[in-house]
């Protein structure tokens, strides 16, 4: 027991503009459950992808059983016995349990046909070992989330994997299912597997893991036996980022209530959420990825359906049925994913900037091209979009400039409430500051700004008030002037703990 199975040494992975892993090292030992925690964007996913051969590291070495290896694709990692159960399951719902388990590893009989008799028996045995006495010819779509996950784990048992990576395995499970999963993970441990357990739930780390590694800012911070560490210490390892003067925050006296949300609910995403947002205020929404923040505001903007709840704008109840209705109610929504939801990449900067207020740009029946050009050029100048021409395709711009085009789209509608969802994700520092400047100028104009962000420094740097969400619920609300307006307390709330200095 305790022999090193996989070792990553000084792994560095660089993406254009970002260092995703910075000289990261980790050792997974057989018969041990190794916990991995860190803030959003700390580099956990990149680490997993290097381990499974999805990414090829720029620097550093990978050792499997003391032999130096190089993975050039996921299949090679799999052949070395490294498997991963991703948060987004790779299950074909219209295929049977057997078909999913044996996908790519089909067993044939003497005649060259698939030997279903053997495969079904084996599948039943594997699932039975995990306490699931299910008919292996059942479609996976008929199984619950927990059972589907076990099918994925079953794949690694079938191939006799040495290393099993579990990426936030309990995020979509109930407590009963999670408990069942834990006992199976412990069984795997007893069989001598090396397990990497990535989680956003500290309780799980303490319950399950032998050792825990904390990552921050793409780096390895510490690896400790989980029995020798406390929750608070783990949290302080995870934060500890230095705040600098990156943030052009200007204090503006908040105005009246702009938006009031009452009892918003949507099954599986958020429940009983109520809050208010004021004019001349930046309201930050902090939390971990998957806390339900984006879903909440997509519900408000009527981009997705919600189950219940009421919206009041300027103290009047509003019935918003679709995004067009939200825009009529003067809400602007700058979506999280520029490429998928924000921009038409195959169209020019000008056409993207003119997308939201197209109907206002008409002169008679036709579009007024002069006004479109003027609007786009004004926007490009005001937001400092770096381009030689407004006729350039949006897809040809860098991330920061694309983000500015998304912002530009919404600057031409007379909105009062601006929702920024992860406004600075994946853009460089210079562009970030410009985005912050735009927010500041909006607040100075008396607008209500709501910022969803997973980056704590940004939340603390720009917000007047912060609401922390976890698991679809509001966990805490902190004023800029309050004692809890610090990284540790917000992080603690986001990870499911209570504020240290509970407000009286």
């Amino acid at each position: 027991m305790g022999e090193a199975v996989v070792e990553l040494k000084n792994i560095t992975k660089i993406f254009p503009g970002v260092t995703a892993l910075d000289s990261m090292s980790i050792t997974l030992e057989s018969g041990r459950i190794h916990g991995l925690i860190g803030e959003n964007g700390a580099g956990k996913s990149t680490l997993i992808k290097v381990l499974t051969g999805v990414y090829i590291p720029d620097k550093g070495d990978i050792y499997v059983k003391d032999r130096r290896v190089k993975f050039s694709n996921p299949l090679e990692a799999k052949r070395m016995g490294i498997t991963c159960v991703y948060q987004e399951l790779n299950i074909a719902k219209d295929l049977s349990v057997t078909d999913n388990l044996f996908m790519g590893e089909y067993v044939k009989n003497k005649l060259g046909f698939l030997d279903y008799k053997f495969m079904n028996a084996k599948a039943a045995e594997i699932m039975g070992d995990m306490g699931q006495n299910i008919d292996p010819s059942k479609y996976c779509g008929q199984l619950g989330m927990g059972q589907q996950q076990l099918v994925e784990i079953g794949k690694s048992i079938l191939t006799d994997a040495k290393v099993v990576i579990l990426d936030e395995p309990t995020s979509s499970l109930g407590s009963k299912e999670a408990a069942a999963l834990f006992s199976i993970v412990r069984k795997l441990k007893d069989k001598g597997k090396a397990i990497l357990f990535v989680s956003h739930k500290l309780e799980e780390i303490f319950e399950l893991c032998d050792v825990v590694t904390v990552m921050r800012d793409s780096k390895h911070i510490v690896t400790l036996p989980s029995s020798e560490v406390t929750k608070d210490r783990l949290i302080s390892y995870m934060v500890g980022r230095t705040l600098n003067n990156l943030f052009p925050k200007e204090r503006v006296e908040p105005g009246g209530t702009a938006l009031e949300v009452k009892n918003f609910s949507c099954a599986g995403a958020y429940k009983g959420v109520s809050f208010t947002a004021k004019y001349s205020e930046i309201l930050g929404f902090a939390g971990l990825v998957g806390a339900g923040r984006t879903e909440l505001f997509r519900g408000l903007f009527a981009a997705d359906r919600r189950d219940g709840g009421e919206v009041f704008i300027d103290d009047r109840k509003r019935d918003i049925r679709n995004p067009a209705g939200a825009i009529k109610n003067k809400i602007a929504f700058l979506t999280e994913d520029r490429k998928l939801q924000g921009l038409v990449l195959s169209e020019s900067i000008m056409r993207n900037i003119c997308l939201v207020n197209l109907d206002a740009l008409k002169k008679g029946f036709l579009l007024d091209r002069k006004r479109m050009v003027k609007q786009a050029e004004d926007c490009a100048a005001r937001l400092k979009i770096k381009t030689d021409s407004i006729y350039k395709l949006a897809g040809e711009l860098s991330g920061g400039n694309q983000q500015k085009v998304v912002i530009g789209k919404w600057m031409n509608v007379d909105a009062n409430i601006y929702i920024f969802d992860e406004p600075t994700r994946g853009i460089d520092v210079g562009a970030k500051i410009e985005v912050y400047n735009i927010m500041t100028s909006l607040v100075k104009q008396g607008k209500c700004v709501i910022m969803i962000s997973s980056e704590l420094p940004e939340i603390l740097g720009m917000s007047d008030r912060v609401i922390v969400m976890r698991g679809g619920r509001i966990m805490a609300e902190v004023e800029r002037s309050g004692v809890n307006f610090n990284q540790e307390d917000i992080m603690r709330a986001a990870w499911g703990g209570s504020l240290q200095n509970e407000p009286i």
Partner: protein
Amino acid sequence: MSLFKTGGRKMPEFVGPLMAVLALAFILSVTTERFLSLPNIMNILRQTAINALIALGMLMVMLTGGIDLSVGSTAVLSGCVMGVLLKNGVTNEILLILAGLGTGILAGTLNALLYTRLELPHPFVSTMGTRMMYRGLALFITGAAPIAGFSTGILFLGYRNLFKVIPSGFVLVIILYTAINVMLTRTALGRKIYSVGGNREAARLSGINVKWVLNYTYIMSGLMSSIAGIVLLGRISSASPIASETADMDAIASCVVGGTSFLGGKGTVAGTLAGAMLIGVINNGLDLLGAQTDSKYIVIGSVIICAVFLDVVRNKTEEKGRRLAQARSMSERDNENP
């Protein structure tokens, strides 16, 4: 890259097929005597008119990322509805034409509703269904027999010439292509069509009523098909329920050869016209060379594949240029903020 970029500006989509048309025309005028005669050229324009009209509607649908396989059946059904009315004593030309156009609009509306109301997965499936339904309906109401006897007021689009030489059907093509070009490039609705095809989610979140835009394109496709159906009446001087069996594929081919993307968001009116012309010239040229249907199919099939392949090459080159541009702008930024 220099092949596809001229002076920093992208080459318009229609240049490729247009050059192919000219090259082909040159070859044919050398190898055959009749090709470069006025009657033959006018003949090509007349033959192209029907396909060009249908392709125009197809373009709008394809710009949204969809497809309409029922166009040929819609064209035929429109003519047959007119024929049945004629047989039952309706001789008023305006009434007959309105009935034809109305049929197209209804057929398009059904296609639209199947997609946006019943939310069938992809219009490929639903319009494949209506393609058979409309054809069957045309056969049913006519008893599978052609109906003749239309007055010249209806037939003139198919055979009459303006100024003695220009086929009136092609004049209609020019008028409608110009109008739709203005609609697509200069009106809010046109820009919405491109946006819905380019990124449906972004369009929806920008407050565009996506379903309404989709409905519009399918109804327009039906309308264009019925106009083509009326031109067809004139060309064969009767309403036939068994005509234009390959109209859907010809129209899709014209769009694709003209640079329209199957994924939506990309394509132009000029490209589609050039594509339709290319297919018209190939058909005509092979006729002049005495080719049979078999070799015609093989040639047109190859042209479609070549056109799409060129499009793939062009997209890859553009993608590479885009990545280079991004990398460059990033390194510039790094130099500014070391």
